[in-house]
């Protein structure tokens, strides 16, 4: 690779113009050596090949031919098999030993099948049988030139790819279907702390020790036609020579041939340590700020309440009104601070560590109970629909209560008076589902894909007076995903929304 690079840069300097270099590359002049003892054939070839744009050299016997090949590189050799002295067959072997990529066209007086096969076996590209017409020579030569060009294209493509892959900051590991390493770039070797100088050709187990990476490669290789998919994971790797832990995002996918057969696996390693650190920093910061804001807000609220209750002297109606509005504003602020705290706790994985078996029917019953007064206050029918007995999931209690609570509280806020909210759970093959369906405002289609984004709120005439932080559903989604579940919503404006949460059945959880 480095040789090619130097050559290219020298060439650039010599010609002093990139344009000319490109032109050179296109006007490729093949160097052809004709080794034949017949002067007539030498001359004919020389004339014709020169016309075809080749640079032609001549040798009238094998020894001379081999000598010339040692001195300089030839792209194509036209080689007579029957010559006095050294036989053409020996010359052929000699050329192949020195320059395996030289294209050799054998000229033979007796084109027997046996002979042709033998020359081909020894590495000849093609043969011409005497006597041959100029047209036959042209065809064979242009075929050879085409072949050389293709080889050159492949070689430069390979070089380009290698330079590219080797300069990537992402680690790349490619294995064939027998798990032999086809490619392993320096970034990859560095990430896994491998000291191996040569990795290509080795079995992947010789280089990679991490069981999860090996498992991912196995999974990728086990995929069959029509079922190809990417396997992703995040791993913490600590190279032997450094104390510092690295978080690596890994993507592993199979590559296939034209017939869709699995040829091997490409694994890409992306160092996300810095990203993770920043994210943690952000969560810590948000958490700290939110906490510092929340506590004083809560005491301000209580102090206002004391004043509002007349414990600090009588209030005029106007004063009461103003204080009540202020208290509402501060309540929203305190709520925002609380939700920010929740979100940062979830993001840093702090509150979903303890998992237990949860009876969902009971959990929903409790939540419905909690919200009963609020629903009654708006004349909403909040109902737990009966579901199958014994629906349970393995999850964090606080988290799942928060999920259900957020959905019910949203349903109450976004459903006009006299509406109905149903909450229930059921199951499908692999999932336990929690449903919260209301007869409320619904979610306009253009907003639907954003409602799980942080701070996103549906803004229109109907929602103007509804308070919210835009964090509730983001929290719900984070929790559900941290439990390997999914959430989706069906909604029709002015008819209502139906949120469904799917959590893995206990037997599917590891």
């Amino acid at each position, binding site marked *: 690779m480095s040789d090619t690079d130097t050559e290219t840069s020298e060439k650039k300097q010599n010609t002093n113009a990139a344009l000319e270099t490109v032109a050179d590359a296109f006007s490729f002049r093949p160097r052809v050596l004709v080794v034949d003892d017949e002067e007539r054939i030498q001359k004919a070839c020389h004339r014709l090949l020169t016309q075809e744009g080749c640079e032609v050299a001549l040798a009238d016997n094998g020894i001379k031919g081999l000598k010339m090949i040692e001195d300089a590189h030839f792209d194509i050799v036209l080689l007579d098999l029957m010559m006095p002295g050294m036989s053409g067959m020996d010359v052929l072997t000699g050329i192949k030993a020195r320059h395996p990529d030289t294209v050799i066209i054998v000229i033979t007086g007796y084109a027997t099948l046996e002979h042709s096969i033998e020359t081909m076996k020894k590495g000849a590209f093609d043969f011409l049988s005497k006597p041959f017409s100029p047209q036959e020579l042209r065809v064979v030569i242009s075929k050879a030139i085409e072949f050389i060009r293709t080889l050159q294209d492949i070689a430069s493509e390979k070089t380009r790819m290698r330079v590219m892959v080797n300069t990537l900051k992402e680690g790349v590991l490619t294995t064939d279907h027998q798990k032999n390493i086809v490619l392993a770039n320096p970034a990859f070797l560095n990430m896994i702390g491998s000291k191996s100088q040569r990795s290509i050709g080795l079995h992947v187990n010789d280089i990679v020790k991490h069981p999860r990476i090996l498992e991912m490669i196995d999974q990728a290789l086990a995929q069959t036609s029509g079922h190809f998919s990417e396997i992703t994971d995040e791993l913490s790797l600590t190279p032997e020579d450094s104390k510092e832990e690295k978080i690596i995002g890994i993507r592993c996918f199979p590559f296939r041939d034209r017939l869709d057969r699995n040829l091997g696996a490409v694994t890409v390693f992306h160092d996300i340590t810095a990203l993770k650190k920043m994210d943690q920093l952000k969560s810590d910061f948000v958490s700290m700020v939110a906490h510092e804001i*929340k*506590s*004083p*807000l*809560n*005491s*301000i*609220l*209580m*102090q206002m*309440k*004391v004043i509002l*209750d007349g*414990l*600090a002297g009588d209030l005029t109606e106007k004063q009461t009104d103003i204080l009540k509005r202020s208290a509402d504003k501060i*309540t929203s602020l*305190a*709520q925002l601070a*609380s*939700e920010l*705290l*929740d979100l940062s706790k979830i993001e840093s994985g702090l509150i979903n560590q*303890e998992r237990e078996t949860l009876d969902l029917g009971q959990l929903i019953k*409790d939540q419905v109970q*909690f919200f009963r007064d609020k629903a009654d206050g708006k004349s909403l029918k909040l109902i737990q629909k009966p579901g199958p007995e014994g629906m349970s999931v393995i999850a964090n*209690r*606080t988290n799942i*209560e*928060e999920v259900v*609570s*957020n959905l019910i*509280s949203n349903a109450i806020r976004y459903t006009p008076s006299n509406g109905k909210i149903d909450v229930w759970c059921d199951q499908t093959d692999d999932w336990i589902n929690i449903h919260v369906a209301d007869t409320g405002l619904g979610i306009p289609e253009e907003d639907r894909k954003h409602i799980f984004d942080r701070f996103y709120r549906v803004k229109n005439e109907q929602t103007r007076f509804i308070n919210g932080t835009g964090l509730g559903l983001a*929290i719900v989604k984070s929790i559900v995903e941290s439990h390997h579940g999914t959430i989706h919503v069906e909604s029709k404006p002015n008819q209502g929304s139906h949120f469904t949460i799917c959590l893995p059945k206990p037997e599917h959880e590891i």
Partner: protein
Amino acid sequence: MSEQKLILVVDDDPDLVEAVSMKLEAKNYRVAKAYDGVEAMDRIKEEKPALVVLDVMMPRKNGWDVCEEIKNDAGLKDIAVVLLTAVADSVKTTSYTHHDGKTTLADDYIPKPIDLDELMEIVSDHCS
């Protein structure tokens, strides 16, 4: 009317203690105040209140521990304990009755931010 009941209010935020106290006094309770867990234990032993409104997150000694000490002391265990908890912050959940995997011995719970009217109901329930 019987003798006014003594309520101890414990929180590291003096403003919160003050607001709760004013509300309690307005309801004709006598009020004692403490600002951390250690001070709370001292007050409890000295004054034997009828009920303690007890914050959880406090310096020196947290509310879970204070609660446990009260309930494991034969002389104090009849004192009612109402925990102020911020564990389940933004929503009401049942998990604030649990700590370290076991059910706490507190008599009642109220989440922060405190609804003062709700707190008054809880206090009166446990003092009658």
